[in-house]
């Protein structure tokens, strides 16, 4: 092995050599630098490989040939090797990225750059405190030099502020080191640690001075204004280096020096970290400058790393995964984003719309952003998972909550940024700068991130027990996205079918899972048929579809909480990306992902608590956990409630469904929504009978009533069905809250039913919208003559929805009545039925405003919806009819699966269903009604067979004729009297609440960020105050 000292010698030598080159010979100097960096990469790379995968043991290098304290010792262990590799790799790519900048600035710039890298390397490796100080100083000065590379006033000011800040830090650090030497007579780190500094009188003060200095160097919130100004004004390439090279260095230095406190400081560091993490992310919400935002994000990432470092004891053996996950994600993603921002012309987030129409760059952008936000399978996802699990198992619930709050703030700005870029209507006119030497580092970082993902996935594979084939399939779709849409659609459908056939045996024994499995895959495949109506490539549609479905199937097949959670997040991400493809979906998709992930964080907490109780991550042990601590079930339930859009958490839904593409809505609404139900079944089965479920029942009632009334007031067809979905979710929630077999049977019955008719309705309406190009129902009208097939499916859909016999919807009502009476929830039951009657209002509005009434001129030549929209509808209608005649096909297996629940079930006698309260024979009802209907129809036709067919204006109009179809089509706000009477029930309290929350958050972030006024003196003062406050706090008071 090459001795690590050569890391120093190569860097130093190159810097020295550079002095002999001439400015105009930039090729020589540049080549030298690149060569040196390559060499350094090789050195740290080989050490990393050897230490991690070989049998190499860590080594100590003594520079002067003596043992410490007489010489400076450098250590090359696993951590050092990995971190120097990160630094050097970033250094190499950064040099390539910055090459033309450095070239322009001359050989001294190359020199400074080399010194910078050198300083970082040594600061990581050294075990000598003074040496650490020296090389940190070197790094600082080199950094200041690099900042000045951008020759603007702002950069100069930032550089100056940086100098002020770092000189304070150096001062404090130096004093600490001097005292340390005076107390333990050594500067060797191991010596100081062994010296037991905190036990010596005055030692605590020394520890304080050293650690506070290092802490300040890591730019803790709120004494970090200088750091942010640097991020904002330095060249993005330098910003990247600060974030991904200096950052890990400081973190590691803190990690290295921390033991001198003898463990007393661990939690302090973690607290600083959490304040930084939450605070920086909070302030980042208001940022519009790309680099400043990235700066905040970098600081926040450093903060969460500090948490991990501070809590290393609690994390135990998982510490390395947590730290690595966090570090690597930030490393790849942040470097990538910083470097991308250098490509973009302009500093504002809005300018990133330049990326539109460049799928590869957009992909990289999304990859970086969502990895940072902690979506699977990014390493940060696994890191946070482990962090939460370990914290929970050590009772660190407060930590958990704050970490998730911080993550949520992070999510807010990251997804908003992403949404702005892809959702914005106008595209920035400027062209991004696409020089190869800038693109390549970005690409490499992307590949690196993907590689890390694979590594982490691989590591967690036994825990996840997931199938890798679907994930490979998603990746393949990303790669094959240049193919025409119909091909990808076919492939996706076939893949889903294949997967269904392959894996149906896995869930065959569990009816509940089987139902969801079939809905997700078979239903999904059917609803995807509508996609054949679209021409072109639809770049970026199918990968997300696949992602959503992989998530959905993962939910069903998962056996561990991690697998479940990963699938959940995957589904949320996939569906978010699908929704954000809509034309006006920028805001709604953003709200959607916030609510999704907000709910997911509650799940995470629930799983964490469960892990704390049982110590394993199996889904099956959730029940044991919940018996000990019902909070598990409650947290999970609330998390799932956001997915089914219970009242109060529903505001994401209507917009998201309405704005998604017309063929995406059916499976988002009809199929994906069932994921929330699946979750609720999971969570409610473990807290059945808990008093909390009584409240849930009422929430279900409110959701049902509110959703249905709101649906009646909608003018937008898709929003109407969306609100109706909320209403149905209310029924299901209500049923699931009851802890009896009959109610759960009703709930599962409704799951199947809702899937059938909601998919039918969304497909039918989607087909109509496909033709009419509008979603406003009052603009349609009279389409029955043009689109009879769509009309029939909507008709069947609403009859089923409204619960009118003989279609299957009635079965739901019947089960419901029985369940309500059996469980004794009479008043709630009556209100749910009230909401069922309200459903008539919107059912009628939906069908009449679109299909009945007056045909408009512009739709005079309109055609029936595309066959690919019609086909899946009719497949589902066949299913619905079979289900209507033979409900026992579903109910009997469900009853069998639920037999362990309390309460009685249904007695079956052929088609005859009986409970202790009532009876029902769907087969005979259907037969009787069908025969009667046919006879009566024949009777009417016999009597009026010669009827004259007339046209739309041939109607009695008080002796006049109507003026125009528009003025004679009663479809807009037709329930005004109802609104007048009962509209007060649905005043948008929820919307007000969330708006108020959002604006308070926004305003306080806006107010708080004034803390950073851009003045160097103020920053210095802030640092001093921070130090003093910190001191006072650890001393236990003022």
């Amino acid at each position, binding site marked *: 092995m090459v001795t690590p000292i050569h890391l120093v010698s190569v860097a130093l030598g190159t810097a020295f050599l550079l002095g002999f080159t001439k400015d105009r010979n930039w090729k020589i100097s540049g080549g030298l630098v690149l060569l040196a960096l390559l060499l350094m990469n090789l050195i740290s790379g080989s050490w990393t490989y050897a230490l991690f995968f070989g049998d190499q043991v860590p080594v100590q290098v003594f520079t002067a040939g003596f043992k410490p304290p007489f010489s400076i010792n450098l250590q090359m262990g696993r951590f050092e090797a990995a971190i120097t590799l990160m630094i050097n790799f970033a250094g190499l790519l950064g040099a390539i990225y910055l090459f033309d900048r450095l070239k322009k600035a001359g050989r001294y710039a190359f020199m400074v750059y080399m010194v910078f890298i050198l300083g970082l390397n040594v600061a990581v490796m050294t075990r000598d405190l003074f040496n650490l100080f020296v090389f940190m100083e070197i790094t600082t000065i080199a950094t200041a030099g690099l900042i000045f590379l951008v020759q603007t006033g702002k950069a100069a000011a930032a550089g100056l502020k940086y100098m002020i800040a770092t000189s304070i830090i150096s001062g404090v650090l130096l004093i600490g080191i001097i005292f340390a030497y005076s107390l333990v007579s050594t500067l060797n780190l191991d010596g100081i640690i062994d010296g037991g500094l905190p036990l010596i009188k005055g030692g605590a003060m020394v520890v304080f001075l050293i650690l506070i200095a290092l802490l300040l160097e890591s730019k803790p919130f709120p004494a970090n204004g200088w750091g942010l100004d640097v991020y904002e004004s330095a060249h993005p390439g330098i910003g990247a280096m600060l974030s991904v090279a200096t950052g890990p260095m400081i973190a590691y230095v803190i990690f290295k020096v921390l033991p001198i406190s003898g463990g007393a400081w661990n939690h302090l560091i973690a607290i600083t970290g959490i304040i930084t993490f939450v605070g920086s992310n909070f302030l980042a919400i208001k940022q519009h400058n790309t680099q400043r935002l990235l700066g905040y994000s970098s600081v926040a990432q450093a903060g969460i790393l500090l948490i991990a470092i501070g809590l290393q004891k609690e994390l135990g053996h998982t510490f390395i995964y947590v730290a690595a996950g966090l570090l690597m994600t930030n490393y790849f993603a942040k470097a990538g984003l910083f470097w991308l921002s250098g490509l973009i012309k302009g500093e504002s987030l809005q300018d990133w719309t330049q990326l539109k129409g460049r799928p590869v760059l957009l992909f990289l952008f999304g990859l970086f952003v969502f990895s940072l936000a902690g979506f699977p399978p990014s390493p940060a996802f696994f890191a946070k998972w482990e962090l939460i699990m370990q914290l929970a198992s050590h009772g660190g619930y407060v930590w958990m909550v704050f970490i998730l709050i911080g993550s949520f703030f992070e999510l807010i700005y990251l997804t908003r940024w992403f949404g702005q870029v892809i959702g914005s209507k106008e595209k920035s006119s400027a062209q991004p700068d696409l020089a190869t030497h800038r693109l390549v580092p970005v690409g490499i970082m992307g590949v690196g991130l993907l590689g890390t993902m694979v590594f982490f996935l691989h590591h967690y594979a036994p825990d996840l027990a997931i199938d890798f084939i679907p994930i490979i399939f998603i990746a393949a779709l990303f790669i094959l996205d240049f193919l025409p849409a119909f091909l990808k659609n076919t492939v996706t459908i076939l893949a889903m079918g294949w997967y269904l056939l392959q894996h149906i045996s896995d869930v065959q024994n569990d009816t509940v899972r089987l139902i969801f499995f079939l809905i997700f895959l078979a239903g999904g495949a059917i609803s995807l048929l509508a996609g054949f109506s679209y021409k072109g490539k639809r770049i970026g549609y199918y990968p997300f579809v696949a992602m959503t479905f992989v998530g959905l199937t993962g939910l069903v097949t998962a056996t561990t909480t991690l697998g479940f959670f990963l699938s959940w997040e995957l589904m949320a991400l996939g569906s978010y990306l699908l929704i954000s493809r809509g034309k006006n979906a920028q805001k709604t998709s953003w709200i959607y992902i916030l609510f999704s992930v907000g709910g997911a964080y509650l799940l995470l907490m629930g799983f964490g608590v469960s892990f704390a109780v049982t110590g394993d991550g199996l889904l099956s042990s959730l029940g044991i956990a919940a018996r000990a601590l019902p909070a598990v079930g409650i947290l999970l339930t609330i998390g799932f409630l956001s997915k089914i859009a219970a009242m109060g958490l529903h505001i994401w839904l209507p917009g998201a469904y309405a704005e998604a593409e017309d063929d995406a809505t059916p499976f988002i609404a009809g199929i994906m929504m069932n994921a929330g139900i699946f979750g609720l079944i999971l969570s409610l089965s473990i807290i059945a009978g808990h008093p909390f479920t009584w409240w849930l029942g009422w929430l279900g009632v409110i959701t049902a009533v509110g959703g249905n009334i709101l649906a009646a007031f909608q003018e937008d067809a898709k929003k109407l069905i969306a609100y109706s979905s909320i209403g149905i979710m209310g029924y299901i929630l209500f049923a699931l809250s009851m802890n009896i077999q009959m109610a759960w049977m009703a709930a599962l019955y409704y799951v199947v039913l809702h899937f059938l008719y909601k998919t039918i309705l969304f497909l039918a309406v989607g087909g109509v919208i496909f033709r009419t190009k509008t979603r406003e129902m009052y603009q349609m009208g009279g389409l029955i003559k043009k689109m009879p097939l769509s009309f029939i499916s909507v008709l069947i859909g609403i009859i089923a929805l409204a619960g009118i016999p003989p279609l299957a919807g009635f079965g739901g009502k019947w089960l419901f009545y029985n369940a309500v009476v059996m469980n004794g929830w009479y008043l709630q039951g009556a209100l749910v039925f009230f909401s069922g009657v309200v459903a008539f209002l919107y059912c009628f509005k939906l069908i009449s405003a679109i299909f009945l009434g007056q045909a408009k*001129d512009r739709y*005079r030549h309109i055609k029936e919806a595309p066959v690919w929209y019609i086909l899946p509808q009719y497949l589902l209608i066949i299913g619905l009819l079979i289900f209507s005649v033979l409900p026992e096909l579903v109910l009997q297996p469900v009853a069998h699966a639920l037999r362990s629940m309390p309460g009685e079930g249904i007695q079956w006698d052929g088609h005859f269903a009986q409970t202790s309260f009532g009876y029902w024979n769907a087969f005979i009802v259907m037969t009787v009604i069908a025969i009667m209907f046919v006879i009566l129809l024949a009777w009417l036709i016999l009597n009026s067979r010669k009827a004259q067919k*007339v046209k739309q204006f041939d109607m009695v109009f008080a002796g006049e004729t109507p003026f125009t179809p528009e003025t004679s089509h009663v479809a807009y706000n037709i329930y005004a009297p109802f609104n007048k009477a009962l509209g007060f029930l649905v005043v948008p309290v929820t919307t007000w609440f969330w708006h108020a929350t959002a604006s308070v958050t926004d305003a306080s972030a806006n107010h708080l960020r004034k803390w950073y006024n851009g003045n160097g003196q103020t920053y210095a003062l802030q640092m001093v105050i921070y130090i003093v406050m910190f001191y006072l706090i650890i001393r236990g008071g003022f």
Partner: protein
Amino acid sequence: MENKDFIKPYYESKIVESPDGEEIKVNPLEDYFCGEAPKSHAPNSNKLWESFLNWARAESLWVLGFGTGCGSMEILPLMTPRFDAYRFGVQMRPTPRQSNVIIISGYLSVKTLKRAIRSYEQMQNPKYVMALGSCTINGGMYYDSYNTINRLDHYMPVDVYITGCMPRPEALLAGFEEMKRLIKAGKGEKANEYAENFEWYKANQKKIIKDWNMPDYNW
């Protein structure tokens, strides 16, 4: 401030754009209205059955609530306890679709005639017309008015005339009795007469209704 847009010429041809950008020509009179001419419907060939049906038609006279002139004042008391036309099977209906009798109550201005014709045509066969008052017979005291018709039977086939200016409600009741007698006798076939002499009626109507902006037959 010439504002002629208030009543647009709605029934002129126009061109609209479909959602796909295709241009659609709309001719409202053809596209919004059924252009078929009325047909004559022969009575049931079974005499006995037909007379049974005629009895039912006669005993169930549903009158369109449509007052044209001052005579409509005489219709209202019919429904009060004093005259109580209900006991004769007479009742008012708000829509021509469900009525089988239309009463032209008094003078008929040209403007109202247009509405009356439309309402009459929207009734279903068999249907009956009752002309109330002198004005419908020969113009009455408005015989020389520039804007009221003189003879109703030139525009729609009349089953029963009731003379007087104005006839009292008793006269109306007598008119209903007469109409019942006619219907039961199988003479209430004026709707067919209208269909058979359709062109003559239309010519007369069009002669005085100058702004004819409706189809020839209002279904």
